[in-house]
């Protein structure tokens, strides 16, 4: 773990009309950490993600990636800088094969995007890369399935694969296990852990499964009603009284 900051949000705010979804958020993501963002529904986690990945324009504040201001950079340029994002709602290319889904992502950073008259399948480097990614996320044997025909759990893996094929330095996971059954979750967690540690990447994770968050993250930020409530190691967060009242208390109360 280093102390270097890879992504920073300064006084970040987003308002939808009168509703302030993200309210003056300051957050620093250190390099090579697994940073989880938790909070009850409507806490502004996904909105924060949309601001960090550039899907939505910010109302106020700045976003810095490796010290560079990227606040007004569109998503495709952020992707080129090395920010990858997966979605809470499965967001894939439904009528293309699994291989093509990932191959497209692998091709994005290459220099062959404007070759109108050569055959896409002749660029072996992207296919090799895709096969490697398919192996990593555990979709081997599914290469020629249409993405829409995959079961939900595998769609989530494909979602992950698309992000990985872009070879990002910073991965934004928006509820990677959303909708998965509890038996499938450990496998996906292992994959996530592997891909983040393997290439010393940094990950930001929005997740609802507390056991998962507690076990894999290095730092946890708790959000509530658009604000940062607390930040610290999993251990510190679990002990934090404010957090317990706002969020964990409810959940653990239900469980016990």
């Amino acid at each position, binding site marked *: 773990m280093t102390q270097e900051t890879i992504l920073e949000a300064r006084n970040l705010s987003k308002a939808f009309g009168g509703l302030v979804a993200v309210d003056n958020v300051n957050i620093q993501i250190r390099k090579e950490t697994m940073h989880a963002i938790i909070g009850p529904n409507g806490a502004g986690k996904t909105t924060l993600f949309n601001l960090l990945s550039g899907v939505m324009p910010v109302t106020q504040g700045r976003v810095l990636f490796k010290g560079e201001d990227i606040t007004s950079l569109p998503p495709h340029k952020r992707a080129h800088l090395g920010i990858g994002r997966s979605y809470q709602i499965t967001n894939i290319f439904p009528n293309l094969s699994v291989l093509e889904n990932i191959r497209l992502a692998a091709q994005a950073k290459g220099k062959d995007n404007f070759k109108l008259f050569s055959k896409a399948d002749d660029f072996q480097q992207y296919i090799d890369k895709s096969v490697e990614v398919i192996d990593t996320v555990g979709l081997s044997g599914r290469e020629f399935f249409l993405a829409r025909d995959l079961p939900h759990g595998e769609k989530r893996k494909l979602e992950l694969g*698309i992000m990985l094929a872009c070879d990002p330095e910073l991965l934004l996971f928006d509820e990677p296990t959303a909708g998965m059954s509890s038996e499938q979750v450990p496998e996906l967690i292992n994959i996530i852990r592997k891909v983040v540690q393997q290439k010393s990447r940094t990950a930001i994770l929005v997740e609802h499964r507390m056991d998962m968050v507690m076990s894999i993250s290095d730092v946890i930020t708790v959000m509530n009603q658009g604000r940062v409530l607390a930040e610290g190691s999993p251990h510190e967060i679990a002990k934090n009284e404010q957090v317990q009242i706002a969020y964990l208390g409810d959940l653990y109360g239900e469980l016990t």
Partner: protein
Amino acid sequence: MTENINPKKNRFLTNFQDERIILVFLVLLIAFPFVMNLITGTGLNEGVTKFWQGQFIVFFIMAVFAMSYDLLMGYGGILSFGHAASFGGGAYTFALLMKHWAPNFMSNYRIMVGSINITEAIVLIFVFLAVLLISILIGLLFSATSVRLKGAYFAMLTLALGSALYILVKATDFHQWTGADEGLHGVPVPLWLNPTQNRLTIYFISLIFMFVCYMVMKRMVNSPTGRVIIANRENEDRMRMIGYNPVVYRTIAFVSSSIFAGLAGALYSIWNTSASPTMISAVMTINALIMTILGGIGTLIGPILGAAIMQTISQFFYTWFGARWPLVFGILFILIVMFLPYGIVGTWRLKRLDVKNGWKRITGMLSRKE
């Protein structure tokens, strides 16, 4: 695990059978006028043989127009109701220059290579370059509207843009140039391109034109760029997130599609020796839409088939039902869409894949047991 990853053998969207089928058709179509000539005994440039050549010429040109529409809608997922602007734009550019500029130029200048007068050829090349330029400009104009608008709003704006051009060519203010309502008639074309005297030449030119356009478009949709254009159809948000700028790829789709449509329009203008407002009207776009849906969206070969069906049906239905034929055709179209929602080629491909996968599963099961 990885040794069987050969996308060239397992491509889903492309298949080699297409090329073989189209080659067979090419040979048949080349032979057609001569076979007709043998069967009916009428000369190559008279009677039934000549009439059917005409029908086929329209089919070839319409096929290219429908394919260009498919490139935009079927592959790019861009539903434009103003696509006829490119077709009509090409037709009008050609007709206007040939009628108002070329005769003056040819009477004032004479460009010779040795003893051969190449003025006419130079003029034609120049006019086609102008058609190309106008098509690119129209493509850029339409893609500019897609930067901010999506879905129905975008479709409405393309309709409005198309209609604006339609009104422009119909404007009485420019009557002396465009002929307003009547359009431009009697466009002087070189003798060797004259549709009455040298119909066979146009027949082969438009046949080759269709074939070349098909091959080029086929190549384009399988290129790295084409694949990204397909991704735009599938999921624009995701495409942006993995690092592609959708606007850039939509512009490429628009401009290339517009070029094909514009060239088809220019050829149509040669065939008719005229350019009329119908060529630029929304009806023209709807025709391309119908042909594409009939044959199968996103198949390229489908629109060719759709154009052939449209051309044949309109011919026969007109003799059977008279002026009310579109009514009967409408019912037929609804039935086809109901029973074959992916069009003729599209449905066939879907079923074929099912059959193929079925066999694969059976052989897979058998080999696993051993």
